[in-house]
């Protein structure tokens, strides 16, 4: 009895508030997507650069810095950014961008390092220029690694974006914070659920994208045994 009551009320809540929920979800998505896009833009070239040279101290330096960003508690990082970037969307995106760097960087680096050096030399010996080799040989071969880095990052960035509402960036976290303030469970549940759904959908979409580009290679490995 109580349960069906709650569900009916919850359905009413959705009817009243779906526009707000939609706006919050869109904000949430924008913040996450921007942070990941920026993170990829920095981390992928950086990973390629690191994989293509053997300067030890540079590797250590870059990975140490990325690690430090990764280990600062998210709440603290957001708080630290307020005096620097104020409040709102910008500092939120910046903080999440910092978090996105390390996993994408690590995967890009691993992906490029995994490319058989004999293949790279073979390409070089046949007359690929450095850039051509990077784009036509190394990048496609490292792509599955890079994509899995991006997928992993996307899932947890979407989850962490809920915190961004604490510095006034909006998003689904806003629903949760309001819910806590006015003690309204529906808001909290809705915010959480929407964030989960968003993360799952994004993961699926990126997975499909990855598959589309690497489908051939997969078929190849599967059919190997027949030959």
């Amino acid at each position, binding site marked *: 009895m109580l349960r069906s009551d709650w569900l009916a009320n919850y359905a009413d809540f959705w009817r009243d508030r779906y526009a707000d929920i939609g706006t919050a979800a869109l904000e949430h998505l924008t913040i996450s997507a921007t942070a990941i896009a920026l993170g990829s833009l920095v981390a992928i070239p950086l990973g390629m650069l690191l994989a293509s040279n053997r300067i030890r101290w540079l590797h250590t330096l870059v990975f140490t810095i990325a690690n430090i960003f990764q280990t600062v508690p998210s709440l603290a990082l957001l708080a630290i950014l307020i005096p620097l970037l104020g409040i709102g969307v910008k500092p939120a995106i910046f903080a999440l961008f910092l978090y996105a760097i390390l996993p994408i960087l690590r995967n890009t680096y691993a992906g490029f390092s995994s490319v*058989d050096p*004999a*293949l790279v*030399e*073979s*390409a*070089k*010996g*046949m*007359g*690929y*220029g450095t850039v*051509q080799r990077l784009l036509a*040989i190394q990048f*496609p*071969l490292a792509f599955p690694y890079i994509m899995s880095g991006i997928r992993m990052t996307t899932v947890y960035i979407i989850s962490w974006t809920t915190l961004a509402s604490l510095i006034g960036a909006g998003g689904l976290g806003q629903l949760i914070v309001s819910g806590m303030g006015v003690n309204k469970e529906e808001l909290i549940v809705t915010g959480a659920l929407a964030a989960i759904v968003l993360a799952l959908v994004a993961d699926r979409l990126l997975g499909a994208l990855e598959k589309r580009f690497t489908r*051939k*290679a997969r*078929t*190849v*490995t599967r*059919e*190997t045994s*027949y*030959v």
Partner: protein
Amino acid sequence: MIQFTEVKKTYDDGREVLKNINLEIQAGEITVLIGPSGCGKTTTMKLINRLISPTAGQIRIDGEDIAKSDPVRLRRKIGYVIQNIGLFPHMTIARNVAVVPRLLKWDRQATDRRVDELLALVGLDPAIYRNRYPAELSGGQQQRIGVIRALAADPDIILMDEPFSALDPISREQLQNELIRLQQELRKTIVFVTHDMDEAIKLGDTIVLMRDGAIVQTGKPEQILRHPANDFVKSFIGKKRMAGEQTAEELPTVDEVMVEHPATASPTRGLAEAVKMMEKRRVDSLLIVDKNNRLQGTVSIYRVLDQFGEESKTVADVMKPVEHVVQTGTSLSVALQLMSEHQLSNLAVVREDGQFVGLITRGTVVSHMAGMYASDRTGESNHVAV
């Protein structure tokens, strides 16, 4: 023609991998660089397409110094086949073969035509294989693609770095034969690196044997087999291959052929005794050796019987001096020559100090030869059975 002039390569850590290489690689030939690992053969090859640059010296292709050319453009004019095949796993077979034509921006139709033509050349049906991926092919098929990929833009020079060493023996044999067949038509300048002497002999027009960053010997396979420059070359070629190409010094020495205890008699023996000894040993002559084991002379049955009536005579009185002897360690061929030149039925072997050690007769030579021939034959049939 590719010319190396005083080429040296020293790595940053001071390791000297090439010491003063002077080499001419003839156009239209397969030149095989061979040697134990670390001898610098691969380094030498990679200098040609500038994957490695020399510390000193000059490399010229058809008279032009390659150090002055653009490396990327140079490489597109030189075919390159590597050991682990190096096909790009994310590209179809057609794309793999078309790599260099695409880099050279050939038009699409010409490229496609060329790909089909090359696939057919190595017996792979284009309709079936064009759109497959490398992992769907067997090792032998993959390396065929590796070879035709190097031929795609019709380069004059092709570098092959142990291209068949990772294949099973049957595929390796097939690909070697195919390479020979292709080369008969194409007449490319092929630089082929291997550590397998059989492969080098089979494929090479010229073999360049290297060791510790230097060239030990250069020559036609036949030349190297017949006249190995030193012990290293000999050991690298291996006893097995040299047996068929036996040289004078490989012939046995007199020590192996001689009879060690021939019928001898001391100079004081009487003639009747001598006849008895000959009868017993079933020989027609005796060697007369004094008590210090020095050869004094030889008596034949005819000379003994001739003087038989004179009871007081000893063999010393009737013996003839020995005119020809050979020392121990002399090659059998020298001994045989001596025997045929002087119509000798036997030849004594003495030590350096004049001590008598044995005798070579026509019979011992024949039986030795027969033994060698027989063991050769059995060796051969063993080989076939294996």
